[in-house]
């Protein structure tokens, strides 16, 4: 049993509505009921309703596995980085600290690290992961690269991420705006200083902002004229 190579996981935070359906559904999985392996982050709720679902990115060279002193984390041939193997995991938390995406978690009761395994019980028998099945906005999408190309003409998948000097290639892709060139990677460290705009798309109709119509960070305050 393995996850078919043509089936891939795509994340589009632009579509995310913060409903937590993915997180709630993850805790219904038959292999880890009651515990969610994924989480949802508000980027900065005081400024925006922008949220981001965080699932395991399934790195080609998983940092979590590289730092594991007990060799408890394995990547299977289909590119899925499995959750910690129970007999080996010593709950040291190295993986939790090392993962650049902030995915693994230590669970106090069973004294073990558990993380998203792309619903291996489902995906290895041809089903979609639970979170991508239920996601009402399809910010989480599971399917083929051809499907995503046809259904998402405004964006394109990227699976290389830059964290300082570390470049990470993952099995899971993030959707980025489609342009003449596919970006070489997403520079995560550089983006950390950005503050989310109250609206991701600017009011391009206002004369003084017409020139910056497609510059999200220049989005004007839609309530600028409101007196209090």
């Amino acid at each position, binding site marked *: 049993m393995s996850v078919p190579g043509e089936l891939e996981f795509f994340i589009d935070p632009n579509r995310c509505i913060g409903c937590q359906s993915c997180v709630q559904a993850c805790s219904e999985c038959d292999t880890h009921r009651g515990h969610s392996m994924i989480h949802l982050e508000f980027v900065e709720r005081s400024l925006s*309703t922008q949220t981001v679902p965080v699932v395991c990115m399934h790195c080609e060279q998983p940092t979590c596995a590289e730092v594991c002193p007990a060799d408890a984390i394995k990547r299977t041939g289909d590119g899925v980085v499995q959750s910690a193997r129970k007999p080996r995991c010593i709950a040291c938390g190295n993986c939790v600290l090392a993962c650049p995406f902030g995915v693994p978690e230590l669970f106090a009761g069973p004294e073990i690290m558990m993380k998203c395994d792309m619903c291996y019980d489902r995906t290895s028998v041809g089903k979609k992961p639970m979170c991508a099945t239920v996601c009402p906005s399809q910010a989480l999408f599971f399917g083929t690269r051809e499907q995503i190309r046809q259904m998402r003409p405004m964006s394109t998948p990227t699976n290389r991420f830059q964290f300082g000097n570390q470049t990470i290639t993952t099995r899971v892709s993030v959707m980025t705006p489609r342009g003449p060139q596919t970006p070489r990677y997403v520079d995560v460290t550089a983006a950390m200083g950005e503050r989310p705009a109250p609206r991701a*798309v600017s009011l391009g109709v206002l004369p003084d902002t017409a020139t910056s119509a497609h510059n999200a960070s220049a989005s004007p305050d*839609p309530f600028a004229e409101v007196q209090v």
Partner: protein
Amino acid sequence: MATIPVDDQDIIRKFGPHLSTMTGVRLSTSVEPEKLVKTHCCFCGQQCGVQLKVRDNVVIGFEPWEEFPFNRGMLCPKGVKRYLQGSHPDRLVTAVRRDPSNPAGFSPMPYQEAIDKVAAEISRIQQKYGASAVGMLGGASLTTEKTYLLGKFARVCLKTPYIDYNGRLCMVSAGAANKKAFGIDRTTNPWSDMVGTEVIWVAGSNVAECSPITTNYIWQAREMGAKVIVQDPRITPIARTCDLFLPVKPGRDAALFAGVLNLMIENGWIDRDFIAAHTVGFEQVAEYCRQWTPAKTAEVTGVPEPSIRQAAEWWGKARTSFLFHARGIEHHSNGVQNALGTINLVLASGRIGKPKSGYGTIVGQANGQGGREHGQKCDQLPGWRDIANPEHRKYIASVWGVEEKDIPGPGVDAYEMFRKIDAGEIKGLISICFNPKVSLPDNNFITGCLDKLEFYVAIDFFLNDTAVHADVVLPGSLQEEDEGTVTQVEGRVIKINKAVDCPGEARQDWVIIQDIAKALGRPHGFTFNSPGEIFQELRRASKGGVADYSGITYEKIERHFGVFWPCYSEDPRTGKPIDDHPGTPRLFERGSYNPVAKGAGPFYFADGKARFNVAEYRVPVDDISDEYPYFLTTGRVVSQFLSGTQTRRIGPLVDQYPEPRIEIHPRLAQKLGIRDGDWTTAETRRAAMTLKAMVVTTIRPDTIFIPYHWAGKKSANQLTVAAQDPISKIPQYKVCGCRVRKADAPPDYAGKLEPQQ
């Protein structure tokens, strides 16, 4: 004597809301379900298909149902965790009676004894004060079979005109506007039509939180090139990435629509051929709109003038479009006018009755559509018939086997029923699927009314916040304990399937209603043996009405994943019986035939033409003033549903958003000296309440928002105003004047009640 028997905190201690969490079998990773039951979510009007995992008469989990075409496996968090409402510690498994001697206020009583007591009290009140002294309240989360039975029970068994339902708080502004403009009340297109349209206008709908599955349709339409316009005082998740945001001041929607239509007319962005051929009344509307210049519209609505112009241009020039609205423009004392304003924009564009062009209201409740069609509404008989129309009365009397003269006339809306309770005209009340103490505006008045009832019986599966006033509570059924049909947001009739039996002495609601009829000695017409039998009679009763279900069968629904009404058993052109009518996914197609217009045109009037109606802007009742300088608006959060009777009992949903907070913009917060997390008091002309502040830039700085799912001192409807639309009688939940200050001290309940209580 419908007063609370003991302190409400003592009642809460015994009857909840307590939280259900995943325990036992529901936490096991090795237990396999015995069966998967294909059915639908019990909550909102999207009615997502879902499969329930069942073992030993317990729903132990869910499995996505990817074949069901509307949601294809997608679910919101309520749909994911909805199964935790079953086997709940708060579940009423016996009837209970008011008992001040019991520390919890209520004592169990045998089911039949409870039914006999209810019948005896109804008889006593009706003999003493007349048949109309008993009223009945229903709800739009019930199956259509149950709503049909309630309407029949009130008119035939109780012989009272006083029945209404909680759709009064939900769908009636849209319904009244649709009736006036189209002669039929239903969304015009299946949602799949949306993908490929050029412009989508979302007017007053927090789609992402209130109807999450619709999000993917809108996003997919956008991927295919649609521009999305969102009109809302808050930057909701659907507004966050829209192409044009119209930050309207609460209560100013009709002015915005008039201003946009005026610009469309001035610039020739209207479909004159369609207007001439298929509508009447355009000139009067154009005349009214002339005063709404862009400058005046901007001043009144708070929407910047360039944005108004852009909206008019995009909407005016589009070749295909969809317009959706929801409670944001409907929950107003001007709600019908607001809805008519959107319809005028649609009719002027001529973009209706086509594959990529449509209009609709996004229904709130599970059966918001079907629940408003078959007779639990005060002015209505089955098939969307009019209770004041002699021919309609005669037909329904023939189906019910009663004299036409014995069917009571129109009753009054749900809020007016409480005023009649207050005035002593209604002395006895039966309620089901309605929690008015949380859901009606100015709800301290409602509490006072409940105290005045001589006898109140509630039917519910939990002791809800209103039922604590009841003399008797009869243990009803959860959605998964019964079968029947509901009609979802697109007008698609679908089938709810039974997964488990009722526990203990709980009964299916239709059984309880029939048991009361029998105990009253008036069982005639209330001897159905199954929901299927009720549906057979409903098909006959709806036949020939606008909402014609006569061609629908349970089998046809399952075969086609739902059937869109009208669905005929006789060809409307020839009158010949047909058994394969496919239903009507899309309304108003050119050249289509309907039994009202009889070929004269696509709309449901004798001349086949749609009606423009002057949609006049009126200043909201209880608007802002020097004393109450800020707008209060109310609404929902994604993890809770309506008055929270169910969702405030589901642990993972309560964890997601435990208690109501006051959303306030940092500019206003700074002016008032309020920081994020501070206890903050909001006060209107009716009441004050204290909640924690949530300081966010995603709301108009002159407006605060409070979600309404909680009870008691956490209930937003303590503050709201009982002003109602003169036509639809919908309450004005979405705007009233309020003042805000940093609280002097935490509220009394702080530290005493759990978040959901």
